């Protein structure tokens, strides 16, 4: 739907001018930064709760910028901006009474609202939520509803709002727009949203079965000859192509998955001979491992939140 209420920027974004002298020098062209982490090594991230005092619960999550990004910031060599790192703020309002128009519900009703800041992605996002944002909202709701013990708040509603301040890239920005055929960055955004929302819900003291955290695994191929291999917590900007990726929302204490989103062809995965799993099983297991990793940080952040609320009492 077109946004007619505001003056919008050009839909495709703009490009900074490139001067001829830069084009001729070799430094104008940079190569893709490759993944320096081990396949099973996750990125570090920062998670803190209670940043927004007006909300009943809130959290802020930020992925550590990749080494290449840090290097590029201090010593810019390339015209191509390096990869971005996810930054998400989450607020939880409620539980609060439902408006009169809503029919009786024996359970806590969740409303999830995912919104990208206009400047979050390389392509400007409008103020009206578009299909990807709505789609992410549904995924997130599925993930959270499984974790919340909803029957303890009949006739109540819970509003969860996520603002993506900086989104994950779908591809390396030096690649042509179609080299990565799908919006792989969305999977990382969803995983971050799940973890952040889980922390904010805990911060709002809503009863949950367990802390649910998000994890991503992907099958990537860095050159055309080898079969795709499995990596955890993939950064799409670091790989030539992604065959298949998967995000899960996982509760470690119950060993249960509340949300699963897998896309792409996982049949050609290069697994060890002894490994009897098929590609998609390996992907799901990998994503669960990534979610377990995220859960350790999530637990610490929630413990911090509890300590703070005790200190206030």
């Amino acid at each position, binding site marked *: 739907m077109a946004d007619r209420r505001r003056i919008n920027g050009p839909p495709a974004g703009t490009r900074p001018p490139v001067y001829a002298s830069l084009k001729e020098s070799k430094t104008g062209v940079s190569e893709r930064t490759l993944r320096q982490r081990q396949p099973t090594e996750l990125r570090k991230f920062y998670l803190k709760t209670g940043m927004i005092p007006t909300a009943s619960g809130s959290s802020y999550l930020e992925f550590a910028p990749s080494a290449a990004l840090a290097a590029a910031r201090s010593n810019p060599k390339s015209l191509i901006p390096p990869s971005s790192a996810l930054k998400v703020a989450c607020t939880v309002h409620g539980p609060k009474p439902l408006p009169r128009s809503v029919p009786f519900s*024996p359970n806590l009703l969740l409303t999830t609202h995912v919104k990208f800041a206009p400047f979050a992605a390389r392509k400007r996002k409008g103020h009206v939520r578009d299909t990807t944002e*709505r789609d992410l909202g549904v995924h997130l*709701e*599925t993930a959270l509803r499984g974790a919340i013990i909803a029957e303890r708040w009949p006739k109540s509603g819970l509003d969860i709002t996520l603002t993506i301040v900086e989104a994950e890239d779908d591809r390396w920005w030096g690649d042509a727009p179609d*080299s990565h*055929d799908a919006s792989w960055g969305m999977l990382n955004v969803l995983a971050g949203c799940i973890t952040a929302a889980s922390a904010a819900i805990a911060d709002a003291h809503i009863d949950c079965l367990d802390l649910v955290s998000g994890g991503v695994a992907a099958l990537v191929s860095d050159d055309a000859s080898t079969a795709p291999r499995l990596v955890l917590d993939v950064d799409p900007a670091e790989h030539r192509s992604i065959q298949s990726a998967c995000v899960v929302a996982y509760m470690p204490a119950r060993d*249960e998955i509340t949300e699963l989103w897998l*896309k792409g062809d996982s049949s050609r995965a290069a697994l060890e001979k002894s490994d009897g799993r098929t590609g998609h099983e390996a992907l799901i297991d990998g994503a669960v491992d990534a979610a377990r990793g995220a859960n350790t940080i999530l637990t610490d952040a929630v413990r911090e939140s509890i300590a703070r609320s005790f200190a206030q009492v």
Partner: protein
Amino acid sequence: MSNQRQASSASQVPHLSPAELSYLYTSLSLPKNPIRPDGRSPTQFRPLSAETNILPGTNGSARIGFADGTQAIVGVKASVEKTILAADTLDSRSLAQHGDALNREGEEGSAAVSGQGEWVQMSIEIPGYRDDDALPVFLGEMMRESLVGSVAGGSEEVKEMAGGLKGRLVINKRWHWRLYIDVLLLSQPLAYPLPLLSLTTHLALLSTKLPKLKSTGEEDPFFDDDWAVAEYLYPRSNKQSSPSDAPTYPVRPPVTLLVIAVGENVIFDPNREEIAVADAVLAISITRSSDSENMKLLSIRSIDPPSRLTQPGIPNSENVNMLGGPPASSNQSGGQEEVGGVWRPRRGGVQRSVITRMIKTVLQKGGVGEEVIQGLEGVKVE
């Protein structure tokens, strides 16, 4: 507001009492042979009637109706569009090429030939929902994702489909087809409408024709006026043993199946009541792998099971009316235990083993996925 709430729970909760839910759950979770309300076997689909090419004004169309009266109509329209190399795609690498070899301009556009997922647009209309409500958006993205994602793996006989559907839409470096898939649900959905919409879209795409290209190479495209020589979007192979045989397709569009798990059982094509008691609901998109006979997985999405929103039943031990006195346990945790025959809304997620089993039932040789695809292969698309 209430409408949006309904939409966001991905499927409406039917008005079933806790006792009915509990009965349904028990009969569906019977080990080995679940009893479904309509007497189907776990892997049996509802009977349906289908026809294709019903609308003369579209490039391809199909209608499928279930016996319960839910019908969907899909119309596919295509238009020629100029491939816009957006400002951000002129990356510095191609700038560098400009710098040292301007005459090699022809080569650098090669990336544009592989097609873009955005060229396939899907819109779903469901009566009672706005087209930007969560349910139509979610369903549309789900089906589009597997459509544009299915890339045929390098078999030579289908060179038109080498880049999947996206690749097929490329005319040349500067022009491409844009495909509009409009899905129309003719009545309020009685069940989660995904299987209906997916099967209808599948047939509509198979019947879709594009006019024959007369121009060659990088010219501005122009087309043969004769609709009789138009080419199918999904090419058909010429080697038919007899004219009466259904034409064979080297590549077919993907199919999305709705699978639920109830207890130990995996059940396909659930109706509205069955979905209401499901422990887990998955939408699994599959297609036939082009280089082998096996089924290939394209995408999985979990769908929020409506059972999480149902009302719990109250066991007799806690029911004030039954005891005639105060309930035995008034604390909240007393209500958390499972009592046989008393409905509890589902909580938590799914075990990995359950997901694996659901996927396996779809993908295995001779499994449901193959059965569905074979059934669709039997449908003769005019």
